[in-house]
C-alpha cells in the first residue's frame, strides 16, 4: 500500500497557516492552557468541594475531555500541542538539563498502558469526577510526573512512554484529518543535516541547538501517520528547507498502512501497541458502562459472588472481565477464526487486525465524552461566575446563571448514535483494507471474523447508550 498524495497544506492557508508557523504559536497556546490549569488547581484545592460548581471538575471532566476528542477528530492532536506540562518541563530543563536516556527496556508502551488502566480504575473507584480536590491533585500529579521524568531523561520520554493522555491522543490521532508530512521527498534525500530530527545548530557553535528536532524520534522522511506525533511543530521550525506540510488526508487510512514507521516500527510487530489499542477500545465501553443503571445490579451480583461489600475487589473483577476476558475471547476468537480460514498464525492475525477497531473505539469515546460536552457546554459560565464569587467574594461576573447548561440529554442521543455509527463504519472499512493487505486473494474471508466482532461491539455500545443513565458517586455498594 502506498501513501496517497496529500491534499491541501494547512501551512499555506491564509491567517491559520501563518499563525501555526509563528515561532511562538505553541508557547502561546501552552501559556493559555497553563493559566486555565492554574485556575482549575486553585479552585479545586480552595473552592467548594461540589463537583458541578468547581472549575477543576467541570473543566476537566466535561470540557477538557470533550474538546480533546473533538479536536482530535476535527483537526488533530492540538491538546498535545498546547500541553502545559511540557511548558513547565521546558522551563525546568533550563535549570536542570536531563542527561540520562530513557532505559531501553522501557521503550515500549507498557508503563503508559498500566497508567491508562490505573487512571480508569481510580476514576471509577474514587469517583474522581465528583471530587474537585482530588481532580486538582491529579492535574498537579501530571505536572509533577512530567517534570520528574523529563528533567532526568532526555527527549520526550514522558510523552512517548508514560503519559496516559498522550497515548489516548496518539491512538485517536490516527483518525485525524491532518498529518505532518514531507512536501518534496527529493529535498529530504538531498538533505545532509536532518535538522527535523537532530535539531538545527548554530553555524558558529555546532553543538548548540537553536531549533529543537523531533523529541519523539519521528524522522519525517520515514514518518508514517500520526502515531506518537504530539504535533509540537518542532520539526517544522527546525527544517531549513521549509519542506514540511500539515497535510489534509483521508482519516484512518494510516491504520491499514503496513509500512515500517520511523520511531515505531511495524504496527503488526508491536504487542504493546496492540494491547494499548485493545485497552483503548474496551476501556471506552467500560468507561461508558459506569454511567448506566444496569452496571449497579451487575456489581451487586459480583459482590455477592465473591462475598465482599467493598467496592475495590468488585471493580477489579469488572475490569478483568472487561479489559482481559472480553478482549481475549473476542479478539482471540476472531484471530483464531481468520487464521484458520487463510492459513496464517493467530498471532499475526491478532497483531494485524486489532488496529481496525480504533475508529469504533474512538466513536464510543466521542459518544460518551460528546454527551457530557454537549449537555454541559455552557456550565462553564455559571461555574466561572461562581468561582469568582468564591475566590474574590464579589460577583464581578454577575450572579451564577445555573440555568446555563447545554443540550437536553435526550437530544444528544441521535448525535451519539451518529458518532458511534461513523466509528463503526470506519472500522469496517479499515478492517477490509487490512484484510486486503494481509490476504489479497481471500480478503473477505479474512475480514469476516473481525467485521463480526466490530458489529457485535457496535450492538453492545448501542444497547449501552440506550440505557437510562444513573450517575452515582457511591457506586452500587455505597
Amino acid at each position, binding site marked *: 500500500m502506498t501513501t496517497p498524495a496529500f491534499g491541501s497544506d494547512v501551512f499555506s492557508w491564509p491567517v491559520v497557516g501563518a499563525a501555526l508557523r509563528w515561532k511562538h504559536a505553541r508557547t502561546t497556546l501552552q501559556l493559555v492552557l497553563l493559566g486555565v490549569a492554574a485556575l482549575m488547581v486553585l479552585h479545586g484545592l480552595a473552592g467548594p468541594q*461540589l*463537583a*458541578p460548581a468547581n472549575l477543576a471538575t*467541570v473543566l476537566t471532566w466535561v470540557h477538557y475531555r470533550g474538546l480533546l476528542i473533538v479536536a482530535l477528530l476535527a483537526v488533530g492532536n492540538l491538546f498535545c500541542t498546547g500541553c502545559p506540562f511540557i511548558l513547565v518541563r*521546558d*522551563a525546568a530543563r533550563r535549570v536542570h538539563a536531563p542527561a540520562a536516556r530513557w532505559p531501553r527496556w522501557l521503550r515500549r508502551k507498557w508503563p503508559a498502558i498500566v497508567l491508562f488502566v490505573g487512571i480508569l480504575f481510580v476514576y471509577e473507584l474514587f469517583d474522581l469526577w465528583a471530587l474537585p480536590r482530588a481532580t486538582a491533585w491529579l492535574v498537579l500529579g501530571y505536572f509533577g510526573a512530567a517534570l520528574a521524568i523529563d528533567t532526568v531523561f532526555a527527549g520526550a520520554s514522558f510523552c512517548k512512554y508514560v503519559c496516559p493522555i498522550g497515548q489516548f491522543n496518539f491512538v485517536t490521532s490516527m483518525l485525524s484529518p491532518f498529518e505532518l508530512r514531507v512536501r518534496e521527498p527529493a529535498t529530504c534525500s538531498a538533505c545532509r543535516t536532518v535538522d527535523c530530527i537532530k535539531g538545527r545548530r548554530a553555524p558558529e557553535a555546532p*553543538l548548540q*541547538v537553536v531549533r529543537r528536532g523531533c523529541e519523539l524520534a519521528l524522522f519525517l522522511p520515514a514518518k508514517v501517520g500520526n502515531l506518537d506525533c504530539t504535533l509540537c511543530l518542532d520539526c517544522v521550525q527546525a527544517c531549513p528547507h521549509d519542506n514540511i506540510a500539515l497535510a489534509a488526508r483521508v482519516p484512518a487510512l494510516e491504520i491499514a498502512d503496513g509500512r515500517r514507521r520511523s520511531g515505531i516500527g511495524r504496527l503488526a510487530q508491536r504487542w504493546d501497541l496492540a494491547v494499548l489499542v485493545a485497552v483503548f477500545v474496551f476501556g471506552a465501553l467500560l468507561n461508558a458502562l459506569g454511567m448506566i443503571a444496569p452496571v449497579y445490579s451487575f456489581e451487586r451480583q459480583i459482590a455477592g459472588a465473591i462475598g465482599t461489600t467493598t467496592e475495590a475487589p468488585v471493580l477489579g473483577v469488572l475490569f478483568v472481565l472487561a479489559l482481559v476476558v472480553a478482549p481475549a475471547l473476542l479478539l482471540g476468537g476472531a484471530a483464531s477464526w481468520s487464521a484458520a480460514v487463510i492459513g496464517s498464525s493467530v498471532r499475526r492475525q491478532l497483531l494485524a487486525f486489532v488496529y481496525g477497531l480504533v475508529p469504533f473505539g474512538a466513536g464510543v469515546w466521542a459518544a460518551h465524552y460528546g454527551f457530557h460536552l454537549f449537555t454541559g457546554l455552557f456550565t462553564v459560565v455559571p461555574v466561572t461566575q461562581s468561582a469568582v464569587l468564591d475566590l474574590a467574594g464579589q460577583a464581578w461576573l454577575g450572579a451564577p446563571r*445555573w440555568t446555563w447548561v447545554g443540550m437536553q440529554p435526550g437530544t444528544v442521543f441521535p448525535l451519539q448514535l451518529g458518532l458511534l455509527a461513523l466509528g463503526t463504519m470506519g472500522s469496517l472499512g479499515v478492517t477490509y483494507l487490512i484484510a486486503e493487505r494481509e490476504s489479497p486473494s481471500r480478503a473477505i474471508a479474512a475480514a469476516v471474523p473481525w467485521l463480526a466482532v466490530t458489529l457485535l461491539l457496535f450492538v453492545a455500545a448501542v444497547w449501552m447508550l440506550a440505557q437510562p443513565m444513573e450517575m452515582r*458517586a457511591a457506586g452500587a455498594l455505597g
Partner: protein
Amino acid sequence: MHLQLGSWRDRHGLTRLPGRSAGAAAACLLLLASCARSEDTPPHLTIGWTPLPTVGRESVAEIQLNEAMARPVTGARLRLEAFMTHPGMAPVSAAVEEQGRGRYRARVSFTMAGDWVVRLQGTRADGRRIDVQEDVRRVRPVE
C-alpha cells in the same frame, strides 16, 4: 551527542516569558484569594424528603437549619439548587419558604436518577452568608 536544549529561546526573547507570566498569574491568584471573604461557621443542615426523591415526581424538602447549641436559624433568605454529583448536568432550582423555628420548605423535582447534592445558599437575617450542602443518594428512576 549532547544537545544544548533551550538556548534557542534565549535568542528569541523567551527566556523569562514563562517565568514572568507564571509570576503574574500567581500574583493575581494570590490577590483574588486574599480578597475572598472568610466564611462564617456554617449552620447545621438536615433535610427530610416526602416522598423519597424520584425522577419526575415532586418531593417536598423539609429543611432544618440550626446554629451551634441547636439555635434555629430564623429569617434567612435562601435559595436551593440541586446538582448531580457529576459535573455538567442540569441543576434544579427551587424557591425556599420559611416555616418558622429554623424550618424551611422547598419543592424539588429531580430530573435524573443517581446521586445529587442539594446546596442552600443565601443570607441570615443579620446579613451573614449561608452556604451549606447535603447529599441526596440514589434518586430513584421513574417507576
